[in-house]
């Protein structure tokens, strides 16, 4: 019996963590309920979803032209556009920018992309202090932890946990009250916002026709970070485009509803460029870094559709596997059904093939996805590619070979059934087995295994047929 993989070990630990279960179950349950209510109140909800899906697929289907149009508009609007093929290139661009302009204090809005490319360590190495300003990410940074959900980064922490982190790292008296904790964060981060010379953000969408960088938030940290510092840098995956402002409207209708159950987030910022006059309160420079980092490769294949994802997190909240293990167990930037497809697609299947296997294919993710991404299809496709290109354990290969052999030869199957059934019934008690060998051991670890029926349906049918003849 081989040792469990790191992923399996993390899963095993997570399913036994009752504390984690309670936190995740409560949060995802609430979010899923709010999502449902928000869509129930949306006029023409299904058509809006169709339009949102179409907007994303349409942009992906013409992504080269979209990117060129987007770049043209951005440049006309006074934005400096950079292109980065991979994480290193992106980090170098931002670090160089900071160095050339003497920027030393950065405030950062939540950006999954920046975590993909590990921007923070690269900036710190370049002498830039980086402060996370999204409350959840702020706590994660203070606690030296990792986010466990793409919308609620500290889903796995209780109020007491957060209180202890702040007490330890900010030298404030302990309090578990969220209102108090937020007040502390507001006061501390305000100083950082006012002193920062560099604001870093991701982007929720890019609008090709107008060169718009669209950012949504509830806290106000994105507005602060894209208004006060001298320089604003926005990181954008090349897949994040929609063609027009009308398309953006459709996206905004479904994003907040899917993520938090709100009709729209408190702040939606449509950023077009630096200050228009010297006395406007706005950054002097706005830069956009367009990042590939595996997206073009993903676009080329069977998982192209995953690039339509708008990062709402609804699939995480609906997924019974995510609910059982939480975000950390996946070991990726993107957990849940989204991550189980996106991670192997972006980063390579050999290293990440366990993720698509950790799914019962229940389809809840596809059902709640605002743009109707067919996640189960891609999970199956990744499994098939994994087996075809990277093999499978010998035991499983032999079992599948035997299965194919027997299931195409009814008489052999009948014989195998009789033998296997007789064997099983010999060891069974009341028709059930408590322990099964080999590949079936996983079953009996958690449940009893029934022995095959003495008389199969085929036997019964044959007897009946003969009886009537």
């Amino acid at each position: 019996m081989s040792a469990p993989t790191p992923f399996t070990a993390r899963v095993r630990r997570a399913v036994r963590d009752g504390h984690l279960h309670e936190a995740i179950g409560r949060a995802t349950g609430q979010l899923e309920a709010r999502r449902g209510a928000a869509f129930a109140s949306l006029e023409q909800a299904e058509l809006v979803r169709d339009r949102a899906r179409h907007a994303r697929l349409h942009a992906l289907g013409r992504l080269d032209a979209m990117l060129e149009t987007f770049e043209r508009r951005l440049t006309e609007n006074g934005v400096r556009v950079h292109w980065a093929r991979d994480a290193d290139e992106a980090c170098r661009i931002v670090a160089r920018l900071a160095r050339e302009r003497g920027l030393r204090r950065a405030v950062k809005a939540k950006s999954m992309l920046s975590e993909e490319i590990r921007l923070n360590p690269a900036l710190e190495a370049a002498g830039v202090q980086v402060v996370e300003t999204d409350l959840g990410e702020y706590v994660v940074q203070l606690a030296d932890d990792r986010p466990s959900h793409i919308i609620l980064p500290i889903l796995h922490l209780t109020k007491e946990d957060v209180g202890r982190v702040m007490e330890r790292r900010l030298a404030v008296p302990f309090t578990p009250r969220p209102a108090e904790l937020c007040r502390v964060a507001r006061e501390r981060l305000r100083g950082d916002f006012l002193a920062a010379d560099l604001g870093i953000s991701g982007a929720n969408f890019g609008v090709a026709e107008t060169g718009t960088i669209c950012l949504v938030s509830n806290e106000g940290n994105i507005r602060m970070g894209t208004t006060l510092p001298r320089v604003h840098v926005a990181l954008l995956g090349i897949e994040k485009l929609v063609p027009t402002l009308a398309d953006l409207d459709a996206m905004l209708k479904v994003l907040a509803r899917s993520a938090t159950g709100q009709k729209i987030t408190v702040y939606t910022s449509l950023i077009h460029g630096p200050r228009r006059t010297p006395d406007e309160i706005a950054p002097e420079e706005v830069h956009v870094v367009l990042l590939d980092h595996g997206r073009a490769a993903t676009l080329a294949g069977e998982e192209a559709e995953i690039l339509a994802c708008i990062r709402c997190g609804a699939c995480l909240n609906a997924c019974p596997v995510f609910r059982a293990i939480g975000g950390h167990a996946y070991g990726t930037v993107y957990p849940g059904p989204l991550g189980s497809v996106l991670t192997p697609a972006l980063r390579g299947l050999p290293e990440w093939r366990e993720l698509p296997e950790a799914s019962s294919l229940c389809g809840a993710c596809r059902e709640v996805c605002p743009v109707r991404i067919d996640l189960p299809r891609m999970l199956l496709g990744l499994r098939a590619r994994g087996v075809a290109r990277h093999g499978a354990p010998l035991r499983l290969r032999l079992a599948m070979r035997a299965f194919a052999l027997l299931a195409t030869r009814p008489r052999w199957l009948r014989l195998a059934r009789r033998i296997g059934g007789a064997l099983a019934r010999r060891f069974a008690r009341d028709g059930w087995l408590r322990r099964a060998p080999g590949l079936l051991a996983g079953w009996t670890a958690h449940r009893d295994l029934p022995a095959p029926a003495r008389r199969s349906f085929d036997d019964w049918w044959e007897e009946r047929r003969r009886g009537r003849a």
Partner: protein
Amino acid sequence: MAGGPSASPPQRVQLFRTCLVNDFLPEAGIAAVGLLERAGCEVEVPRGQTCCGQPAWNAGFREEARAVARHALAGLARTEGPVVIPSGSCADMLVHQTAELFRGDAEWSATARAVAARCVELTAFLAGRVASPPSGTAKPAASRVKTAYHPSCHLLRGLGVREEPLRLLAAVPSLEQVPLAAPEECCGFGGAFSVGQPDLSGAMLERKCAAIEASGADVVASCDAGCVLHLAGGLRRRGSRVRVVHVAQLLDGGAA
């Protein structure tokens, strides 16, 4: 069930009994035959049935899945009439998944499409044929069997069969429907997932068993033999007295 002998000739249907029903839950298949015949159908069981190939397909073994699916499709293609399947996941496999399985193979894609158009899950098929339940004949609550329905995932989301099983169960006077908490959550069977990912499958099973025990149900019914065996095995391991059956068995008047 209502419906006496009909004036028109009986409709011929093919029963694709599924491997799990054949080997582990023949009572469900027997009940299905009874239900179909009482609904005015002449049931045929094409010979040489084995499996639809889903276990290999779900595990990523495309070649093996194709081989088994070809065998199933060839057997069904030789027949006529609706193909009735007492399993949501097998029905979904033959209705939707074979298109993906045979992508790039024009000949087998066409065969798959033709068979897919004839395939229908058992309760979806029956729901169109059952007369509306007579009113006021429900037995007193105390003598009715408390029944919870577990909607299997491929049936619910793959095939969109939501109300039909509930409607059919509601028409059985000896049953009292009780709701399950978070009913649409996957039970954790997922085919080979139950063996390949035991920790996850076990965690999901535990949640579902807890919900079942909390519901006060005496019996849990599902349209999928896989879910039935998985839940039965789990509840038994927990020492529970709740019985798990296939919906066909309940509709046929058995197990009540």
